[in-house]
């Protein structure tokens, strides 16, 4: 559209025309340049992402084999594997989901369905949006001070539980916000229909609102959990072990995780370890790609307009 109008502007411009007409041509040229600049701006991120993926894949994929997945870390790069980190990340994922999903959905239901409109509710809302902006490493310090030091007897100190509690608090705001949006999208008629049949508020929530909000809420949950899998900083502060040659026995045991192991390998001077780090990243990104595609599929499959 802008192209044709530029052509028109140029054609209709007489030789040595007035100031006004000359500026029309210049303005349309500017318009084109600007459009191009915006397109470039949009593509910058995508191009970098593509380079990043290709770079990591080129380094990492040749390193991945069955031995890499099923072996323990080692000081000799050729023997090193990711097994304890993989298991540790699965533990963290499971416990974080166990803690954060009920708490997050519960808080969202309360704020959306029950909470009176008063200063206390507004305080909670402001507080949640604020917590979403707190740097992840600060959650690590919170977990170090509370779950590792004060409640160390309960959690086992620098354990899987402490790590997953830190991650749970970190992703709670994301789950709450996603679930609230899903609940808000349900029309009021659904609630009124339930009440008209004599259902109590909780029966309406359990029987109608939660099932209807589930796809939206679940999308938020999966995205939040995939963020938790990739988090490094809070786990380092909580005290994830850098070099682990055992599998955790239970949730109160010490642990390592995929991002921690990758960080450790990146820090090694030898190039072989950098290649291993790339391989670890490929595995991590593969898991994230799977979970995120699942979330998008879920959203597209069940997304309803009311």
């Amino acid at each position: 559209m802008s192209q044709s109008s530029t052509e028109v502007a140029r054609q209709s411009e007489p030789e040595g025309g007035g100031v006004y007409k000359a500026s029309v041509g210049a303005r349309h040229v500017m318009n084109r340049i600007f459009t191009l600049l915006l397109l470039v701006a949009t593509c910058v991120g995508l191009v970098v992402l593509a380079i990043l993926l290709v770079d990591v894949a080129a380094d990492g994929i040749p390193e991945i084999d069955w031995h890499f997945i099923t072996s323990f870390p080692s000081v000799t790069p050729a023997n090193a594997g990711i097994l304890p980190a993989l298991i540790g990340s699965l533990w963290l994922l499971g416990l974080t989901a166990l803690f954060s999903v009920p708490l997050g959905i519960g808080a969202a239901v309360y704020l959306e369905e029950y909470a009176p409109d008063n200063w206390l509710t507004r305080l909670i809302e402001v507080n949640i949006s604020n917590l979403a902006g707190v740097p992840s490493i600060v959650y690590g310090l919170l977990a170090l001070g509370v779950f590792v030091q004060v409640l160390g007897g309960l959690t086992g100190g620098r354990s899987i539980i402490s790590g997953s509690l830190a991650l749970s608090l970190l992703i709670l705001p994301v789950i709450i916000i996603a679930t609230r949006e899903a609940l808000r999208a349900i029309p009021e008629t659904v609630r009124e229909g339930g009440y008209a049949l004599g259902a109590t508020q909780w029966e309406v929530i359990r029987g109608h609102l939660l099932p209807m909000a589930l796809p939206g809420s679940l999308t938020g949950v999966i995205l939040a959990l995939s963020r938790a899998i990739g988090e490094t900083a809070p786990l380092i502060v909580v005290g994830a072990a850098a070099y682990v040659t055992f599998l955790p026995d239970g949730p109160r045991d010490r642990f390592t995780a995929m991002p921690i192991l990758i960080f450790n390998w990146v820090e090694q001077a030898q190039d072989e370890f950098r290649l291993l780090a790339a391989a670890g990243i490929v595995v991590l990104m593969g898991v994230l790609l799977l979970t995120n595609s699942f979330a998008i599929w879920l959203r597209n499959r069940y997304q309803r307009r009311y």
Partner: protein
Amino acid sequence: MAVETGSGVKSDPQIWRRESRGRVIRERIVKGVLAACAYLSVLTTFGIVLVLLEETLQFFRKVSIVEFLTSTTWTAAFPGPSAQYGILPLVSGTVLTTAIACVVALPVGLGAALFLSEYAPVGLRRWLKPALEILAGVPTIVYGFFALTFVTPLLQDAFFGNSLYGFNALSPGLVMGVMIIPTVASVSEDSIYAVPRSLREGAYALGATKREVATRIVVPAALSGIVASFILGISRAVGETMIVAVAGGTLAQLTLDPRQSIQTMASYIVQVARGETSRGSITYDTIFAVGMTLFVMTLVLNIVSYLFVRRFRETYE
């Protein structure tokens, strides 16, 4: 609610009443449990403030607050009688990487937001937006690896040669900027989206080109939201940890030269936390004092950003 009848029908109303009371109690319990979930978020904030405050006070018993805020040397990683605890080098490292990230993220993010909302056809937009959002989902350790093993060598070969240190502020700053693009773009786009069509159409009717509408009508009208997105982006950059921890080095020095090794507040915490530091030692206390500074800085930024967002919501929605 319960049906009170006379002596006529006995069993039915009683069953009804008993169940009804059970339902009332259950409703109350459910509401209480759900409310507790919501209040937990307040508890989390209190927890953060209390933990940080307690250990920070411990720290200030050993080191004066004046030294902490004004001294220009930070040697806390090597505790001893001559150790100095001035946070300025860590702040300068943080400001430097944040500034570099902003140079990338703010114009590019705003440009992407304008393109998505004003220029891109609907079909293209449906693909571009999620694709951009992938950038925010990549784990930061991956960005760190990329900055260290790809961007730094590239910058050395192409521009700086050996004057760029292997660990430097420039490379993690640039990569961090790319990471923040989606944050800036998505909040900006929300506010641009909220600008009424009539404003644009008025400008077109006066003969404005698309660029003029975008830069002179849409951007000023959405300004408070755009500013909010910028501040949110800055806050992300200030708190970002792993990219700098991997590619920025561990040398806390007061410099604004992007080619130098630096240390940010967050990457200092990581450096200390990786070693075994026992509770009660001054090194242990420093990470909380630094964490407190970081927390306060991001809190202020988040609150300012929130105020700006509220302003554009109030204006157009």
